[in-house]
């Protein structure tokens, strides 16, 4: 998984999932059509970075600290991927968003402060991301390493189906259940 793209920069900390996709888009029972909800209310401002013509086709979003905080809605990474994004670069991500992003092929790329500053200062510049080597190549040509959960990396690179992997562990789950009788029965 290697790609190169210009970036869109939203230099705001703590971008919450209500901004990424407002709750009124959560009434859908499918995953389709969520791209139109992406940053819907911020997009009403003409100068919002995603509205600029040069943002068209960008696959990498650069945002402030603690991206994706708030609600657990997986609609947030769905809306981002349906809008063409393959990675978000920040200094940190909220836990639930990070997990949801990885399950949808959206890379949460954590870079050090100085690299982040360079990216914030260079909207629309080209960045290259290589998952196998966990490397982001900055506009200056400098390479920075980013951390990623090794299992999520394996799933993304080799197409491992996470649910399939879990289903294969049925014997272990059955053994656990036989040793741990539940204390409740919701159907009782």
């Amino acid at each position: 998984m290697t790609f190169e793209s210009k970036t869109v920069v939203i230099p705001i900390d703590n971008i919450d999932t209500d901004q990424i996709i407002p709750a009124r888009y959560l009434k859908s029972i499918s995953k389709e059509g969520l791209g139109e909800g992406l940053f819907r209310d911020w997009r009403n401002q003409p100068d919002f970075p995603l509205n600029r013509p040069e943002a068209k086709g960008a696959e990498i979003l650069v945002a402030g600290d603690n991206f994706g905080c708030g609600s657990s809605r997986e609609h947030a990474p769905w809306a981002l991927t349906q809008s063409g994004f393959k990675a978000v670069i920040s200094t940190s991500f909220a836990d639930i968003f990070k997990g949801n992003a990885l399950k949808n092929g959206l890379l949460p790329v954590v870079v050090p402060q100085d690299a982040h500053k360079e990216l914030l200062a260079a909207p629309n510049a080209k960045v290259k991301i290589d998952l196998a080597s966990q490397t982001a190549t900055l506009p200056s040509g400098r390479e920075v390493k980013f951390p990623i959960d090794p299992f999520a990396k394996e799933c993304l690179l080799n197409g491992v189906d996470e649910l399939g992997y879990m289903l294969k562990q049925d014997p272990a789950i059955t053994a656990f259940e036989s040793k741990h009788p539940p204390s409740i029965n919701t159907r009782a």
Partner: protein
Amino acid sequence: MKPRTIVEKIWDSHVVSQQPNAPALLYIDLHLCHEVTTPQAFTTLRERGLKVRRPDLTIATMDHSTPTTPRNIPIMDQEGAAQLAQMEKNCADFGIPLHNLSSNKQGIVHVMGPEQGLTQPGMTIVCGDSHTATHGAFGALAFGIGTSQVGHVLATQCLLQTPSETYAIRVEGTLRPGVSAKDIILAVIAKIGIGGGTGCVFEYTGSAIRALSMEERMTVCNMSIEGGARAGLVAPDDTTYQYIHGRTFAPKGKDWDAAVERWKQLPTDAGATYAKELTIDAAALEPMVTFGTNPGMGIAISGNIPDPAAVADPIEKSDLIKALKYMDLQPGKPMQGHKVDVVFVGSCTNSRISDLRAAASVMKGRKVSPTVRMLVVPGSQQVKLQAEAEGLDKIFRDAGADFREAGCSMCLAMNGDQLEPGEYSVSTSNRNFEGRQGKGGRTFLASPLTAAASAVTGVVTDVRKLPQ
């Protein structure tokens, strides 16, 4: 054996398997479902021809898209109605018990579970909802998950997880009158910031936490995610056992005694180490109120709105400027006395009977300001019935408030209960993000006492200063 925190103990007892180079497979004791974050997971099950592995450890309710208008009125919102109908179908097809709109157990998922005794110490509990940490009040490891993971739990009753660190939050001393559990958690978040607990589970400890009722502990644990932590919990004690005892799904007879013995092993061992620690002096706390657009932007109600000129970090500064612009607030001005258009008492944070009692204690014999619209939305039909039995509904209605059916309501404004653009609310909910309570709406988060006092005066009000 190495001393362990309660989080480590629950974790250790739920690991099904640990493969090399993979996260642990963690067993889930209780899976709570609602209409918004599950439909796509059921679609995955259908596409792959899978069953729900343990419908007996799964329970569903309707809350997010759910109207709070009288139940005999047809649902006007076609999308919301379709989502509720899909929930009915999914639960029927997969054998999952559901509290639908005609059930007297229907309610917000995090109110419904505990009140039925489903939430028990030592359990692992998940839900496609970030406020699942509420159940941590019982000494359970409870956290929010995305829809892909909802599918994983439905199919396997397990999750792939890596352990979190434990972050001790000690609240010592005695709260002063007019200061509540909501003020504790708003003060914690204001202190550590909304990303302060990322990667951690909070363990709330200390004498002030021990002194809280179960409902108050739920309020504290509920907002763990607003401090960045996926989960937060309180070790179980006699308060916990007394709350659970006798509830529908609580263990009975000999099973009860055995359960309590098991639960007593859960509290953190002496000598266990925490990754991080924070101590808060309960006696120094005041009622809290937020001024900005994330829950970390909170101050004591007597305080003044912060000045961006005093902030050094450039992004932090521009975020504060942006927040104050959205909220249309002036730096340096007091929060008290700021006008309020709507007061919302409800949400999984503050919609339990004790929250309604607190709000009613302020409203009794008083009127909602003519410039304010006040909504009181019980967390569940059981809370509503109890409130009616105590005459609280009459107190609210006599005061001029709207007393509604159970649901998430104006916390996230999915069901038609919402702010108009530019309106200010004092809300007992958990998030003040831009547009959270309706596009263009502006939220001040506060306790039920502060909310009720502000409803009476029409401005942000310290309940302790409300004229008798």
